[in-house]
């Protein structure tokens, strides 16, 4: 699966519009994940996951930075996320189903922050982009 030129332009454009609040977007996506899919909290037993927690914000920034790196290297997402791919496969061993949940929460977050810009085309491009990110992060599992 790969993005068309138009889809790449769309992904980069949408990220550009929220890049100043990327950390907040990452944090909010995690909050939504933990609210809607409370079972995902099991991967963070050492974190205070309450709204406003510094650990939640720090991790949200990490998630946003990773997405940002993937956007910057949209022609080579596998290369950009190689280390994260190894981390998730060999150390964290996150069940792949959770990437779908986080992707969905990222889409909801983007939609709520950019209501006018999150057209069907933008939505389709981001859905495809996050599927690519998820498959890169799980490709070393087996």
């Amino acid at each position, binding site marked *: 699966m790969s993005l068309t030129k138009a889809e790449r332009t769309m992904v980069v454009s949408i990220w550009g519009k929220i890049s100043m609040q990327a950390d907040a977007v990452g944090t*909010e996506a995690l*909050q*939504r994940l*933990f*609210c*809607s899919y409370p079972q995902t909290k099991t991967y963070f037993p050492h974190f205070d996951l309450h709204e406003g927690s510094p650990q939640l914000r720090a991790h949200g920034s990490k998630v946003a930075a990773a997405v940002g790196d993937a956007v910057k290297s949209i022609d080579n997402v596998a290369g950009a996320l190689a280390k994260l791919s190894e981390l998730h496969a060999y150390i964290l061993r996150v069940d792949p189903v959770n990437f779908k949940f986080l992707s*969905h*929460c990222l*889409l*909801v*977050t983007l*939609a*709520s*922050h950019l*209501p006018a810009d*999150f057209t*069907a*085309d933008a*939505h*389709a491009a981001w*859905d495809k982009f996050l599927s690519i990110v998820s498959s890169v992060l799980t490709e070393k599992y087996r």
Partner: protein
Amino acid sequence: MVHFIAEEMAAVACLSAKVNMEAVGEILGRFLVIYSLTQSFFDNFGSLSSHSAIMGNPRIKAHGKKELTSFGSGVKHMDDPKGTFAQLSELHCGKLHVDPENFKLLGNMILIVLAIHFSKEFIPQMQAAWEKLTTGVANALAPRKYHR
């Protein structure tokens, strides 16, 4: 039976009262754009040749509104989606042979369109309540043998 706490029921009721049916009619169009394989269920609905054709197709919009109206009855009977959707389950699974996974995907689409229309008001707790509702409806539409 799906159990909602009072805050969840209030969250759902609050947004349902404000939902603009015309605006959310786009849900089905988005679903067909993003999950293009599902377009095969709507072969006789007119032009689905491009994203803009799908989003502008009046029959798709009308069917989207029909689906949302039906979903609305799920909102009115939040604690008994199985009973509410028994006939629609038979239609979708028994006659149309729709893969039940699609009901979950359509549920995701409803959430994203709600996020667009309610923006900052669609806080995480609001999303969680609606996720519970759409999951309940998706499970109720699935074939009887999958029901717990």
